[in-house]
């Protein structure tokens, strides 16, 4: 009976969603928006079932996984999963890791559906032709890049995740697991495949060849972690491509992390974009800015008059790299953006035991706060890839024996960063060691979610030879099991998906 065919009032069926080029763009917005928002229903909504909005944002969770487990960040909150990360004692039940894993796979699922619905055949059947079809075809390359990025995240953090592509139908059939080395091949092949399809330049915040080369360089630099075979020459090749692509350093380092960082920014290669009113999210930079300060630090100065959650601060190891061991006053290196009068992390549960990193702020270059209707949401965009990574990848790959680069060029690149940081040449170096690079990366990229990956690559993540406060859960720090350099697969999914085998050691 026709009486029983009812349609929703405001939702639309997939046939309608994909009936116009505008619809495809709105789905493309979802593909990007999947790592900028937690859901389509406002800041309290979550794309992930059973995981609340606060524990489902990509950057918030990725940041926690990459920074709290490292020598950079330490969180004071008692929320489930936080201390596991602080102490590197995470288990397969860690909800932060589960949220991240689920978020990454969610974005992949959304991309897969888009790819299924945007094939030339489907476009033709919907009478979308000509320029429209070409434009949508270009979206496909962007979508594939973003999928490859999320697979890179999964490969780097979880090693052996479930694997789904547009060939897998939506339903209830559980995906198969992929091994880390195989996933490396897949990510590599996807990135190489989309390379000629991506534009050299595009709208701000959209995927370009530069982002693709940056990720390729990162992928190759870490290759020996993923499959045991170093690929430093390729790391240099793609870093050089990025360097040669016309990006340039922002003159003032601090401007990279302000609410108007979407303006006049030729350094950031790809960013996740937020808006305090139109892209609201309790994760992202809203989390980074609010959690890094508390009410006693005059949140209004950070552009969040009603914020200041008092959660995350540095481990003393981070300011120590700038030579700061007590309170913070000033530092010749302008990247040292800290706050507080005590660097030591005596009490893990006291927010002020440790300097606060105040790199991200919700004000613009004129110190005017970006608007948000609750005094908390931020408009600062989060840089996923910045030009300096190409410089440092180049230098590190040269030091690791990669071909196609030179030591003197490496020193030059590093000095570009140090000159910006010091404002003059007083910080320049004449030589480089791998340890220099690791330290330089901390100085350049702290609070940007690089650290765990870097420490793993340098063999210092689990090892007893490099300790930081509360590493391994003891104040003096201690070595932990080598298996901890890969996170456990969430037990919720190991239960739900019989094809999964848990990572060793969990």
């Amino acid at each position, binding site marked *: 009976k026709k*009486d029983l065919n*009812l349609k929703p009032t405001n*939702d639309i069926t997939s046939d309608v969603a994909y009936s116009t080029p505008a619809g495809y763009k*709105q789905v493309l917005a979802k593909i990007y928006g999947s790592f*900028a928002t937690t859901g389509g229903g406002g800041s309290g909504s979550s794309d992930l079932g059973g995981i*609340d909005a606060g524990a489902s944002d990509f950057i918030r969770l990725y940041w926690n996984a990459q920074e709290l487990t490292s020598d950079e960040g330490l969180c004071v909150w008692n929320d489930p999963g936080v201390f596991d990360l602080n102490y590197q004692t995470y288990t397969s039940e860690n909800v932060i890791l589960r949220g991240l894993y689920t978020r990454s796979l*969610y974005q992949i699922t959304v991309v897969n559906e888009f790819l299924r619905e945007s094939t030339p055949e489907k476009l033709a059947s919907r009478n979308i032709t000509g320029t429209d079809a070409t434009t949508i075809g270009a979206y496909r390359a962007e979508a594939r890049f973003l999928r490859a990025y999320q697979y890179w995240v999964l490969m780097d953090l979880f090693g052996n995740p479930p694997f789904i592509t547009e060939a897998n139908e939506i*339903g209830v059939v*559980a995906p198969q697991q992929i091994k880390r080395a195989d996933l490396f091949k897949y990510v590599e092949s996807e990135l190489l495949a989309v390379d000629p399809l991506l534009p050299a330049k595009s709208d701000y915040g959209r995927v370009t060849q530069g982002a693709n080369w940056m990720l390729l360089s990162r992928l190759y630099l870490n290759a020996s972690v993923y499959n045991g075979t170093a690929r430093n020459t390729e790391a240099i090749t793609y870093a050089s491509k990025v360097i040669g692509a016309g990006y340039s350093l922002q003159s003032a380092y601090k401007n990279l992390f302000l609410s108007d960082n979407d303006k006049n920014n030729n350094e950031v290669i790809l960013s996740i974009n937020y808006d305090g009113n139109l892209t609201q999210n309790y994760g992202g930079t809203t989390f980074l800015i609010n959690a890094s300060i508390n009410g006693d630090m005059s949140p209004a100065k950070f552009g969040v008059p009603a914020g200041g959650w008092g959660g995350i601060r540095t481990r003393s190891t981070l300011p120590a790299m700038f030579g700061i061991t007590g309170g913070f006053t000033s530092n010749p290196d302008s990247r040292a953006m800290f706050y507080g009068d005590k660097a030591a992390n005596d009490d893990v549960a*006291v927010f002020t035991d440790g300097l606060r990193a105040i790199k991200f702020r919700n004000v613009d270059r004129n110190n005017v706060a970006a608007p948000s209707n609750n005094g908390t949401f931020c408009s600062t965009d989060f840089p996923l890839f910045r030009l300096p990574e190409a410089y440092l990848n180049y230098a590190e790959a040269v030091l690791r024996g990669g071909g196609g680069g030179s030591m003197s060029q490496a020193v030059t690149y590093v000095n570009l960063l140090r000159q910006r940081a010091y404002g003059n040449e007083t910080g320049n170096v004449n030589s480089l060691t791998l340890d220099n690079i690791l330290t330089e990366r901390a100085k350049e990229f702290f609070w940007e979610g690089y650290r765990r990956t870097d420490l793993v690559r340098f063999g210092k993540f689990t090892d007893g030879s490099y300790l930081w406060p509360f590493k391994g859960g003891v104040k003096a720090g201690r070595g932990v099991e080598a298996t901890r350099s890969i996170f456990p697969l969430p037990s919720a999914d190991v239960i739900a998906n019989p094809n999964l085998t848990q990572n060793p050691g969990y």
Partner: protein
Amino acid sequence: VQAQTGSITGKIIDETGIGLPGASVLVKGQGRSASTDSNGNFKIIGVTNGAVTLTASYIGYSSIDLNVTVKGNTVANFSLKPDAQNLNEVVVIGYGSVQKKDLTGSVTTVSSKDFQAGNITSPEQLIAGKVAGVSIVSNGGAPGAGSTIRVRGGASLNASSDPLIVVDGVPFGTNLTIGATNPSVIAGVASPLSLINPNDIETFTVLKDANATAIYGSRASNGVILITTKKGKSGEPVINFSTVNSYATVAKKVSVLTGDQVRAYVNANGNDAQKALLGTANTDWQDVIYNNAFSTDNNMSIAGSFKNIPYRVSGGYLDQRGLMVTDRMTRATGGITLNPTFFDNHLKVDLSLKGSLSESHFANNKDRDAIVAAIQFDPTQPVHANNQYGGYYEWIGSTGQLNPNAPKNPLGLIEEKQDNGKAARSFGNLRLDYSFHFLPELHFNVNGGYDVSKGYGTTNVPAYAAQEASTFGKSSQYEAVQHNKVAEAFFSYNKDLKSIRSNINATAGYGFYENSTTTYNFNSYNALGNLQSTPVFPFDTQQNRLLSYYGRLVYTFADKYILSGTMRSDGSSKFSETGRWGYFPSAGFTWRAINESFLKDSKVFSDLKMRLSYGVTGQQDGIGNYTYLPNYYTSVNESQYQIGGTFYHMYTPIAYDKNLKWETSTTYNAGIDYGFFQGRVYGSIDAYYKKTKDLLSLVPIAVGTNFSNQLLTNVGNMENKGIEVSINVGIIKSADVNWDMGFNFTYNQNKVTNLSLNPSPDFKIGTADGNIAGATATTLKWNSPNYAPGSFYVYKQVYNAQGAPIEGVYADLNNDGVVNDQDRYFYKNPAPKYILGFTTSFNYKKLTLSTVLRANIGNYIYDNVSSNFGVNRNLLSPSGLINNASTTFYDTNFSNNQYLSDYYIHNASFLKMDNAGLAYNFGRLSPNSKANLRITANVQNVFVISKYKGVDPESSTGIDYNLYPRPRTYSLGLNLGF
């Protein structure tokens, strides 16, 4: 032409010789009947001359058959005797009614005289503890709060285990069923059932086995509750006025540390900064937010007949205050029923209209954060302080800014929020029952019903209030309108075939049901009038439809053997075309052994009946209306993404299962109805076995499979088995003293038998209502094969030699040397193994004492209050404030939360005295006066005996966290009739 019809007049008197008003007399086989007037007199006209059988009946009395020969005006008088067992009572069943003795299914009726007394504001509480196999757990003490009703433990996992409720033949729409998932509730009122005035209810009938329920097909798996409302009576108008005035008190509070205890702990364990935060007060925040509350409930009804049209008009006004300060609901209800008959009784019309208007002031009881804050807020701080947040003490940092991580002042949360809701509801139906002139055994029945409700409300928080300080207050509104329509038509045919000592009773019909809810979306503002959010769409309408065909055939042979069968076919808009239609048959065999010759004259047995039945029912509630379709939704204005300078609304795919299908239950039931010694002892025993397959449940699925990691889908099978016993005893029956006692016993066991989603025997799926407060995304209750649904899945706590739990230390149950998630085990579940109900009333002349006791045995509860608040890290919060903890903290001394320890799971078996009442019936105020008076005094929630130390052992979810305390209520009532 000689007149071929005559009339019958007479009088029906009770055992004391007084005329019984409202008793009925039926001419068997002719479909003619009459009711007695206020003096017990009746007259039936148009009776065919000749020998007929008359049946006189009255609720609570044994019916009497009388053979008379009609010629002209014939006189027939009856003297009825009270019957404890009411075997001749007419009981409503689906699409019809039968006498109790002819029932073929497992059906229990509770009529108004047996209802729970006192301050009852939501109808289902009338029968709490009264029916074997039915558990009714109130959702807390808020005014108008509903209850979780489970018939035989419920047959569903997550979809919905709520029974179908049918009022006067009109099924409530699924969007109105209590406790069902979104969009289920009427906006602006706590529970939709609370919009029915309990005083208008005549009977509750619970259909339990499939033979009784299967005629309701796809909505019947969790049992069916039929409610009939009071009807008009012929004769002089009878006016009834009743008032109940009650005083509710807090029965028990959560045990937390006092101000002095917190000071002592912080001074001993805190750092200097924390010690400096301590205040000097001793505030009991629970005392601050709870107060004793008066309620008054007044009802008036007039029943009589006007120009031969029986009518009943009723009105009620309830003003109920809640235990939380400012919590209040007022409700005005009105009802009118007309029951005329036309064409010489060939056409019976039942018109029923009910309406209600309620206004609620919600004291922050929707999300219950004031209840939580009252447990957690530092008792060393005063209630009030001189600050910019309305004068309520708040946690303010050194720069004068509100600490965003701190709980807000509990009283401020309540008093600074104006949360007002209004709900208007009207439901009613018109039933026409036509018996054909040429074939009086054939009836045609048409039933049209509607249920319209509108809920709307506003929430206002001033700009200075701490709870919305970041947005400078709040001003928002909501509105939802529900339209439910029912149209049914059926034929029924009832024929005695005397020649073959048989009776055939057949029914066949068609039904159409439509439920629709429209939610209107509004801009929301802050208290300064600044726009906070704008909806993308002005409204959203959710709709579902059901088309049904149904039939029933009952064949009775020799008044002893009854074979019955039903069939229903339902088509639902919630499923794709391939799986849309479901077929739900049932069959039953009943042996009325009492009518066998060897028992007929037994002095011992007054009734003996055996029932066997089988049937299939379905379940589709709790499922979204369009979840089989691949849909996208448009993101709201606050969730756009910027591409190239333009913000785009995102199209988000919604998880769907195109193969979604019915959940079906197959039930086998065997029962005995018995009576001894002229009904002095009677009751029934039932045993059942129910298998539910294709259970619908919102389950975690393998990530990457669909557009969510959770999906509502068919996941597996479950079985329920149980025994229900009821015993009623008239201990003393004499002129001055009557002592009755009723006892019911339920044993129920639910077990998940397999989860087809994954064949592994270790596979398990978390339940949607099994999450722990404080531990985001941590699921406590799981479903797994061979365990009861929603079993707690926890770690086994290890204790030290002193008997205290060691923090974070659990047994390595799988002996692999590591304690990880594979060492969690299933430990107990929230469902009681045994439910016992006991009612007794003792009557001496005009004085009646009565009580209702209930006990649950074998139910377990998770103490989420202690697991979340009873830790050092809560007391000495890292966020620069002090919190309070539950006193169990002294037992554990945990520094961090150990949410998944079995330490927090407690045996919550309990014995509750629900009600203790005293009534004095003055009877007629003077021998010639029609006025009569009855005065009642009641205490509800008299006592609870339980080993569980939390605030209340009774919980529908098994997780004790933010319960609005169930009050202890003292009430005084007066009932005046004239």
